[in-house]
């Protein structure tokens, strides 16, 4: 019921704006008197994010587990990357290291000139605060805050935050508590929360894992557009191989190692993908 509502809502919106669901990034365009944003894809900032020989070991007692071994790759800004791998392959570990939620055992991660692997605990907190946005499978919204407030919770502590109301295109429903929102709506709030911070990097862990096919597609569209309009790398971690079709770059990961990296010269649009 709610999913349907969302879809209808979005369709109407798309017709109205004459563009797809880019609505969440229109605030600047509006300031310019435009209805939608036009951002040139040229002059990409190469190697915006780089990983060099990154390894992570977990030690529990006498047992040492190599969660990641010698991972190296780089992304340009505006790239939409998909990290593919079965469960236990090290996807989440990779995401945690990128997101400053964990520290690498060896290697170097650099984001926009900042060496993430050299940050201390406090600096890592600031890194998460200003530079990365997270989207989780289970949304992780604060249940006692309304949709809007859930975005504000992130923007309140940020310097360059975007206007939450504009980012969160939920209309009337932005004053609802998460429990009153559908899964898709909750994930939209969660994405809005992540991007309203205006982060340098957007990390998504199975963002469509808890959603149905249609809603999932819309969410993916949203994420894909973030990379293109905000010119920031978006990394989607998933075990759903179908998603790779729309990625600029696909990173295959297996047993903690990078199996191969593919570059899609012609990524397909979400509408063409089925799973």
């Amino acid at each position: 019921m709610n999913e349907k509502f969302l879809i209808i809502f979005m369709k109407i919106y798309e017709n109205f704006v004459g563009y797809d669901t880019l609505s969440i990034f229109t605030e600047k365009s509006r300031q310019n008197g435009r209805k939608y944003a036009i951002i040139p894809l040229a002059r990409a900032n190469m190697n915006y994010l780089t990983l060099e020989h990154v390894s992570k070991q977990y030690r529990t007692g006498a047992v040492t587990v190599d969660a990641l071994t010698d991972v190296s790759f780089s992304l340009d800004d505006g790239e939409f990357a998909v990290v593919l791998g079965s469960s236990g392959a090290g996807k989440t570990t990779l995401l945690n290291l990128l997101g400053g939620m964990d520290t690498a055992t060896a290697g170097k991660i650099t984001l926009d000139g900042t060496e993430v692997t050299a940050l201390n605990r406090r600096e890592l907190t600031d890194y998460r605060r200003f530079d990365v946005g997270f989207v989780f499978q289970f949304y992780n919204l604060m249940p006692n805050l309304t949709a809007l407030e859930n975005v504000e919770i992130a923007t309140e502590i940020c310097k360059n935050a975007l206007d939450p109301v504009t980012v969160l295109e939920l209309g009337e429903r932005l004053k609802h508590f998460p429990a009153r929102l559908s899964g898709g709506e909750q994930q939209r709030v969660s994405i809005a929360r992540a991007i309203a911070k205006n982060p340098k990097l957007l990390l998504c862990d199975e963002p469509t894992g808890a959603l149905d096919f249609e809603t999932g597609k819309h969410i993916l569209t949203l994420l894909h557009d973030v990379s293109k309009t905000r010119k920031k790398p978006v990394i989607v971690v998933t075990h759903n191989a179908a998603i790779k079709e729309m990625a600029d770059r696909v990173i295959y990961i297996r047993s903690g190692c990078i199996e191969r990296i593919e570059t899609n010269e012609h990524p397909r649009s979400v509408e063409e993908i089925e799973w």
Partner: protein
Amino acid sequence: MVKTYLKTLRRMFAHHITRLVSIILMVLVSVGFSAGIGMATEKMAYSLSDYYRSANVSDFIVRGAEAIDAEKVEKLRERYGEDSVAQGGVIEVKGGSLDLGMGAMLRLEGEGVGEGITRIYFCGEGTINRAETVQAVPLEGGEGERFFEASAERANRDLKGFPLGKDVILSLSMGPISMDYTIRPTSSVVSPLHMAEYDDPSMTEGEDGEYELLENILYVPVREGKTIPFLPMNEVYVSVPELKKTDLFFTPYERALEREKAEIEEIFSEEIGAETAAVLTLHENFSFESYNGYEGKIQDIGYVLTVVFLLVTLLVVLSTMTRLLEEERGQIACLQTLGYSPARILSKYLLFALVGTLLGAVGAFFASEGLAYIIYINFKWNYVLPPYSSHISPLFFIVSAALILAAAIAATAIAGNGMTRQAPAVLLRPKAPREGRKVILERIPILWNRFSFKYKSTLRNVLRYRTRFAMTVVAVMASTALVLAGLAVLDACLFQDIGTAAMLGVAVIVLVFAALLNAVVIYTLTNINISERKRELATLMVLGYHDNEVTGYVYREIYITSAVGILLGIPLGALLCLFVFEVMGFGALSKMGWYTWLLAPLLSLIFTFLVALILRRKILKTDMNDSLKAIE
């Protein structure tokens, strides 16, 4: 199957060790307190009963204005037996002289005779009211018709005592004729009738109409043929061993006492009618009656405070067990899908509650022994204490421990039953986080919009978990009230009435136990609160909230809740104080030092901050991944 089951059991205990310790501590404190107070009163009763039995204390004293009629004494002997009846006499000499009437005067001279009242007992033969010798000197010389070797009651705060071996001259004069008797105290003793260390009243009224306090007591043994004339044997002591078979503080003794008193009054009906004699029981003895009074006071205070202690503990144990079950939701569902019976699944949690309360109870048993001894030993300021009875009376312990045990088991069973009744599929899904709700304040946008969102969320949280909020408030309120009551008693004992040193032990114990309970309660509830918010805390951490901002999320709520509890605790504490003062017969709210009112809430506050400090590390150790990715 049993092996694996035992494994899960062991792991559950290891995983929830903090909870187990919380339960153990709370049960230990509250059951320990209630059993300790109960045990103390019983020990007091048994110790004194044993002592009175061995001293063969007189259950009745027939006190006449003149010599007791020998015929009637004979009647008493017939009824109670030869050994149960003894004759004696008593006079009180004020300032060394006593007008015996009809021109006869008695004078008392010698070291130790002062301005106050000296009571002299002339003791007949027999073993009744056997006094214990504290100190003795050998008798050198001294014999003859008019020489009496005597004993004196030991010196204490009011009694001066006599120097041993120094003669006291008692002279009787009538007109020009005068006769001297030499009384030489060679031993100082403690009589079971005068074991109080102070405030022992005489039978002589002072100018203010009150009985003056005794200054000295002499025991002069008289034999047939060796007496002092003019001094009548005006007392009869009756000790009935059968009566004392039951303990002296309990109803059976009281009933028997009443019954026998009526019998004796029947014998002396003539004198009693003429108001020349009275039948006294132990209740007319200051030492016994004040001791009895203290025992009653401790019992009354204990009863009321015990109720509060147990209620608070029950409340918090219930919260703990409910939360534990909630956390084990996934595991319960898993076992259900594997076909384990609800009884089998829940037995684990029942065992947890059982072990927690039982271990606490075992600790409480030993604690109560210790408490009882501390309370008892404090009475040495008030009495020459009889040997501490070895009698163990587990009644209070059993009742309070059984109550907590039954309640903990029942609550676990009810909560668990509610859970296992649900379909495993329902349990496997994460419990929907409780919906946020708007608070009334939000209707006033001018005010509400001024709050930053962190205060908004705090206020909503307080409302969202209304039950938890109420429970925490009640628990903090009650334990703060207990602390206030403890402080009030302590304050009253120390500064308002110096005659209450014995209650000091009780006051300290109430205070210490209330403070302990307060600390454990705040810790446990805060801990539960944090574990419930793990996911929200992890979300904030991922969003890049700094340590203080993350802890602040729960701490603001805890501070608000604690503050409400503490504030409400003051009036409740005042109520408890009123009751306690009423029971103790001293102390008043208006006389309480201002600092007690400040100290009780301050203590709760300090505990809250301390707990916050201790749990800070736990919050910051929250694993962002585990909390955010798991479905709880």
